[in-house]
């Protein structure tokens, strides 16, 4: 057990699986010699060789296609898309192929590919280094979609994803790669120290391999008054907002969007009767829509108030107004107030 950043935890998950199974390799832009622009694959090139920490041309569609072909020949590729914003050239191979091959072949062929990609804003990356496109992948049957919120979860979920025989899209909230983030605008905390994971329990990560099942949510905080459903960076912002306004909220970190831990969601909302859903992604047809739909389907008779969504706005992620775009503690607190006040 030692303290790791999310980057270190991901690196450790890759190291463990590559060490245990020679059919596992990482591939992507700048992941080999350099170790990845976020350093997630650092050291793997030296340890496992150029063919197992494989640099690639800048062709996301070609990278995913090659990974599919490799997986058809007994390998277990872990692809890195340098930013989630750059996954779109690979959409046809992901939607029409990766997600479909098992089903369309009557179960004859399987493609155990994991696609890792950093997502989310809060790093002044502008509209093409900040996106959260997870909802689109949850609409594609045949894909599993995962997003961790701590180094501990990141490692356990990533090992499960790599060992899973189905394709997994694994989103990594880059804002919390190196420390938790509570939604404070940098200028709000001028001079305050940068948060690191060593002060956070989620930063305690075993050196060896362990697994967190895909499809099990984590109840971060028990509460009776209201249920907050979220994932990724927003888990920490939500927790801080709850602490700040001292509400007895139950906070659920979904961790895996598909498969979804419906039992955890339903039992919580049936208990609290109130629900707020939070994500950074744009609002319309975001994953919050699916969550709101299932919650009202499953918990209608227990609901005391409408379910609210606190999300990114339906605009590109702006450079100058990053902190007005990013769902803030204030916005979360006001939504909680409204939902508690209602009914």
């Amino acid at each position, binding site marked *: 057990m030692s303290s790791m950043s999310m980057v270190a935890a991901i690196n450790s998950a890759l190291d463990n699986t590559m060490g245990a199974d020679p059919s596992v390799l990482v591939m992507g832009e700048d992941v080999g010699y350099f170790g990845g622009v976020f350093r997630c694959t650092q050291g793997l090139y030296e340890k496992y060789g150029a063919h197992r920490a494989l640099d690639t041309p800048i062709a996301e569609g*070609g990278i995913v*296609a090659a990974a599919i072909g*490799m997986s058809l020949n007994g390998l277990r590729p872990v692809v890195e898309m340098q930013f989630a914003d750059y996954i779109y050239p690979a959409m046809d191979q992901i939607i029409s*192929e990766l997600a479909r091959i098992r089903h369309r072949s*009557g179960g004859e*062929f399987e493609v155990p590919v994991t696609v890792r990609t950093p997502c989310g804003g809060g790093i002044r990356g502008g509209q093409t280094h900040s996106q959260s496109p997870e909802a689109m992948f949850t609409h594609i049957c045949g894909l599993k979609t995962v997003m961790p919120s701590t180094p501990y979860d990141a490692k356990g979920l990533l090992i499960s994803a790599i060992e899973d025989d189905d394709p997994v899209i694994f989103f990594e909230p880059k804002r919390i790669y190196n420390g938790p983030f509570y939604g404070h605008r940098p200028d709000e905390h001028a001079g305050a120290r940068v948060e690191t994971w060593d002060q956070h329990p989620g930063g305690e990560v075993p050196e060896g391999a362990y697994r967190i099942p895909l499809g099990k949510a984590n109840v971060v905080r028990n509460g009776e008054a209201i249920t907050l459903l979220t994932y990724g960076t927003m888990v920490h912002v939500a927790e801080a907002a709850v602490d700040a306004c001292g509400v007895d909220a139950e906070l659920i970190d979904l961790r895996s969007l598909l498969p979804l831990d419906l039992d955890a969601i339903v039992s919580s909302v049936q208990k609290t009767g109130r629900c707020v859903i939070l994500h950074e992604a744009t609002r319309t047809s975001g994953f919050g829509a699916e969550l709101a739909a299932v919650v009202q389907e499953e918990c209608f008779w227990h609901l005391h108030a409408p379910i609210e969504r606190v999300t990114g706005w339906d605009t590109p992620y702006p450079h100058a107004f990053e902190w007005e775009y990013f769902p803030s503690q204030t916005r979360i607190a006001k939504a909680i107030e409204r939902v508690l006040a209602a009914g």
Partner: protein
Amino acid sequence: MSEPAVPTVSRLHVPAASSRPGEKTEFAYLNLPPPGAHERPPIDVDALDTRNLAYGLVRVLDDQGQAVGAWAPGLRREQLLRALRLMMHVRAYDERMFRMQRQGKLSFYMKCTGEEAVAIGQALALRDSDMLFPSYRQQGLLFARGRDVVDMMCNCISNARDNLKGRQLPVLYSWKAGNFFSISGNLATQFSQAVGWAMAAAYKGEDDVAAAWVGEGSTAEADVHNALLFASTYRAPVILNVVNNQWAISTPQSFASAGTTFAARGLGYSVPSMRVDGNDLLAVYAVTDWAARRARAGHGATYIEFYTHRAEGHSTSDNPDVYRATDEGEAWPLGDPIERLRQHLTGLGVWDDAAHAAQEAELAAQVTEAWREALTHGTLEAGPHWPLESMFEDVFKELPEHLYRQREQMRQDR
């Protein structure tokens, strides 16, 4: 709206077709090199030294049906007779399935008439452990690898014996035991996947090769670019085949060729490339054998354009007479692959019209027999099919809760 500011005379160049209805077809522009004209380079050849092959045309059979030149593969007579039989079998199968579609027994069908030599010639030059990534027009590969015709028919009518469990459109076969990859409805995706498969073979130190096929129209898709780039970058043991049957539904090859040969594109990726008479089974076999040896020896990929002609419509949904001249078939100078191999074998004195007619009749009867048997396993409209619930299987390896619930919902709400 923007101001209309467009003159009547446009300077935009739009490519022409080899022929359109009412026109007389002119294939003169082909100016074919004579059979046997091309050298056969060493398998470790540098891409740039294949330039003549990429802009030329590898031909073995001459107009008299003689095998000539450095590319003559020296196949044994039994092999040649087998190739002829396989091509005839494919054609008999296509004929039958096409008619069955017209009778409403299939939802859809696609023939490969006139292109049989490509799949048959190539399959015979490969090892059974080599992996095939076909498009929908290489049904010949399945015949060459011994796929049970009844199983193919069951795929096409989605019945209870369909190994694809009723999920796929006719002709989108999959046969893992035969190392034949699931055919995608999305053009060209298999091309770049094949390169990944081949990269894995090299990664594992194995010497199996991958082979992939796309039509000439599909070369416009990004996957073909990706395949060439990755195959070249990692020297993947893969054979990348372009079947140039000159038409993509109604769109002539001129919208994909960029005014040169398809093979020429491979040179820009330093992949040895060649254009081949796709209706000449001996030439098809010879170049595939060369490319397979090259790949197995670790020298990397080969890009091959097979020049052929789509003798019939694109599919049962298509009527070519509304977009191309009806005389294209006759005008086409490279003939019919079955007739040309038949001529060769007749010349060798091992084949004659009687034998040919007998084999034709025998294969037709076999196909009819197979069709009867296929129907005993169910039809598309009347079934029996796979159990309805099987629809929810194989989306994931294990049935997740939400699909379990949807399956129950379906049971309940029928």
